[in-house]
C-alpha cells in the first residue's frame, strides 16, 4: 500500500502484488473474501522488503541519511493520509450516525500521531467487533508501518554499515521475527485478540521477514534458483497464498495466531524474494501485468478511502444491495483514490511546482488551515439521544 520511492520500488511484479493485496482487503471488507485481511500481511512484508533494500543500498554507499529517509516517507505518505482523514471527517459529519462521528473525532488524534493501533487495542475494538462504527479502523496498519519506519532504519543504519552489514541485518531481522512470533503466541490466546492482531510488536515479524528477504545472503539464494524452478515455486506459493485468502474464515480463524500468520508472512517473503530476483520470468510477467500493477500504483489511496466509503455509503445504495452495493462501493473508492493520487500523492511525491519550496510551504499552511477549520466546525455529536422510550419501561 505504501511502497518505496527508489529503484527497488519499481519492480513491476511487486507493484502487482500490492494490487492483489489491496483487492483482497477490499473484498474482505465487503464480506466477499474470508481471508482477504491477509492482504495487509502481504503489504507489511512488501514494506519491510522495499524499505530495507533501500536502506541497505544507502548503507553500502557509506551512510544512511535518516532525516532524508524520514522526509521521503513523510512526503510519500502524509499528504494523502491528511486529505483522506479531513475529507472523511466531513463525510462522517454529513452522512454518519452520531456514534460514528464521535468515534471519528476521538480517533483522529491517534491517527495523526501514527499510533491508532494502540488506541484500538485499548478500546478492544476486536472484542466489540466495533470496526463497523470506526471510519478510521483500517488505519491501524498504517500506524504499524510508521512505527516500523521510525525504528528499523536506525537498526539498519547502525548494523548495516561496513563489511558484513547485510549479514548482521539479516541476523537481527531473523531474531526480531522470532521474538515477534513468540509475542503473538503469548497474546493470541486472549479472549480479545486485538492485541495480537494490531500490536506493532506482534505483527513485526511480517515486516522483518520482508527485511530478511532483502538482505544480500537471501538475495543471492533467490538468484541461484534456476528460472523454471523459480517459476514453479512462485506458482506454488501463489496458489498457497490464494488458498489461504479463500479458505481462511475471518480474523478469528483457528491457528491464525498460533503460527498461521507467521507462515503466511514467510510465504509472502519467499514469493517477493523470488519475484524480485527474476522480474522478467513467467511468474514476474504475470504478477506485473497491467491490471494488478495499475491497482498496485493506486493501492495506498485506495486503501485509505475504501473503509470510510464502505461505512458511509447507504445500504442499499441506489436500490442496490449485495454485490451491487459492493460494486458501487469499490467504484466510488477507486474514483476517490484516483483523484487523490492525481491531485495530491503524485504532485507532492514528484515535487510539482506547487508542492515544493516556498509554494510547498504555502500549500501545507493552506491544508493545515482547512484541517483546523474542519476540526473546529464539526459540531459535538450526541449519540444515544432519544434511545430510551420511558413509556415502554413503565408499561405494565
Amino acid at each position, binding site marked *: 500500500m505504501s511502497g518505496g520511492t527508489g529503484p527497488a520500488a519499481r519492480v513491476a511484479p511487486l507493484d502487482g502484488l500490492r494490487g492483489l493485496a489491496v483487492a483482497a482487503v477490499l473484498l474482505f471488507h465487503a464480506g466477499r473474501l474470508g481471508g482477504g485481511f491477509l492482504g495487509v500481511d502481504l503489504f507489511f512484508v512488501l514494506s519491510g522488503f522495499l524499505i530495507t533494500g533501500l536502506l541497505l543500498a544507502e548503507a553500502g554507499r557509506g551512510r544512511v541519511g535518516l*532525516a532524508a529517509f524520514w522526509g521521503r516517507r*513523510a512526503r510519500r505518505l502524509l499528504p494523502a493520509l*491528511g486529505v483522506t482523514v479531513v475529507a472523511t471527517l466531513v463525510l462522517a459529519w454529513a452522512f454518519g450516525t452520531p*456514534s460514528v462521528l464521535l468515534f471519528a473525532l476521538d480517533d483522529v488524534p491517534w491517527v495523526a500521531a501514527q499510533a491508532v493501533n494502540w488506541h484500538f487495542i485499548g478500546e478492544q475494538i476486536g472484542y*466489540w467487533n466495533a470496526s*463497523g462504527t470506526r471510519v478510521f479502523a483500517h488505519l491501524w496498519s498504517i500506524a504499524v508501518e510508521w512505527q516500523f519506519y521510525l525504528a528499523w532504519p536506525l537498526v539498519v543504519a547502525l548494523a548495516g554499515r561496513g563489511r558484513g552489514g547485510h549479514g548482521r541485518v539479516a541476523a537481527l531481522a531473523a531474531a526480531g521475527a522470532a521474538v515477534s512470533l513468540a509475542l503473538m503466541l503469548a497474546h493470541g490466546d486472549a479472549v480479545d485478540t486485538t492485541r495480537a492482531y494490531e500490536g506493532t510488536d506482534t505483527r513485526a515479524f511480517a515486516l522483518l521477514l520482508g527485511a530478511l528477504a532483502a538482505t544480500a545472503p537471501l538475495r543471492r539464494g533467490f538468484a541461484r534458483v534456476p528460472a523454471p524452478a523459480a517459476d514453479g515455486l512462485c506458482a506454488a506459493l501463489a496458489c498457497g497464498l490464494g488458498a489461504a485468502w479463500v479458505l481462511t474464515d475471518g480474523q478469528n480463524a483457528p491457528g491464525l495466531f498460533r503460527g498461521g500468520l507467521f507462515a503466511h508472512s514467510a510465504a509472502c517473503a519467499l514469493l517477493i524474494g523470488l519475484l524480485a530476483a527474476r522480474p522478467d520470468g513467467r511468474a514476474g510477467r504475470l504478477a506485473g501485468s497491467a491490471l494488478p500493477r495499475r491497482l498496485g500504483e493506486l493501492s495506498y489511496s485506495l486503501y485509505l478511502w475504501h473503509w470510510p466509503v464502505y461505512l458511509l455509503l447507504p445500504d442499499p445504495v441506489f436500490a442496490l444491495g449485495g454485490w451491487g452495493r459492493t460494486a458501487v462501493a469499490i467504484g466510488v473508492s477507486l474514483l476517490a483514490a484516483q483523484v487523490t493520487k492525481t491531485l495530491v500523492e503524485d504532485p507532492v511525491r514528484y515535487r510539482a511546482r506547487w508542492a515544493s519550496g516556498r509554494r510547498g510551504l504555502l500549500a501545507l499552511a493552506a491544508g493545515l488551515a482547512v484541517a483546523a477549520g474542519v476540526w473546529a466546525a464539526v459540531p459535538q455529536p450526541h449519540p444515544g439521544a432519544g*434511545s430510551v422510550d420511558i413509556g415502554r419501561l413503565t408499561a405494565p
Partner: protein
Amino acid sequence: MDKHHTTTRKTSRRAALAALLAATAVTGAALTGCGAGDAKDGGTKADGGAATARAGKKILWLGDSIAGAEAPPLAAALKASGVEFKNASSDGGGTIVEGDKMSAPIAKDTWKGLAKNIDAFHPDVIAYQITTYDWGSAEQQRASYEKLARTAQDAGAELVIVSAPPFKIDDFYKKFAGAIASAPKAAKEVADRSGGKVRFLDASALWGTDAGAAKAQRSSDGIHSCQQGSAAFAKWLTGKLGSAYGFTPAAPEKWAAGSWTSDARYGKLGCR
C-alpha cells in the same frame, strides 16, 4: 453531553492539533527539501454523599461485558434511588468460576480485582451476573459460587447472583454450551443451600429464554443490550434490590434518559 465528556473532547482536540502540527512539521521539512480506565468503571461509580446516607447501601456490580453494558443505567437508577454503586464488570472477562483452562486465568484476575474493590469500596451487597465465561463443570461452578458467598460474608456483604440474559450461542460459545446452561442451576443450588445468605435472581422473568426474541432485547451482536434493554434491566434489578434491601427505587423518569445513554460502549455495539 455531560461535563466530563466535554472536557475530554476539548483535551482530545488539543492533542489532535498538537499531533497534526507534529506530523505537519515532518511534511514541511519534506516539502521544502531540507529534511529530506478503566474509564468505564470510574465513570459509573455513583456519588455517595447525601443520597447514600438516605438508603445506606453500597452495591458492587460484577460480571462480563454484558453486565458492563447494563451498568450505566444501573448506576443512574441506583444513584437516583440513593444507593451507592460501583461497576467492577470486565470486558472480555469477569468470571469468578475457577473452571477449565480457559476460565481459570480470567477468574484469577477477577478474584484479584474483587479483593481490591472490597478493600476500597466496602460494599454491603455484592451483585454478580453470571458471565458468558463461567466455563467449568457444574461442581466447579458450585464451588466457585460458594467461594464468592464466603468472600462476601467475610467482607460483611450479602451476595446476589443474577442469571445471564439469553445470548446468541455462536461458534465461539458452542463448545461451552453445557457450562453456560449449567451455571444458573449451580448458582440456584448454592442460594437454596445458603440459608438465605445468598439470593439468586432469575432474569429470564425479564428477558425470556430465547436470545433471538424481541423480549431478549439484544443488540445486533446478539449478546449485549443497547440503551433500551439496559434500562429495562436497571429498572427490574433496582426493583428486586429495593425489595430485598429496603429502599424505594426511583421512577424511570428520573434516570432513564440521562447522560448515560451516550456511553461509548453503546456506540461500539452499533446502538443509536
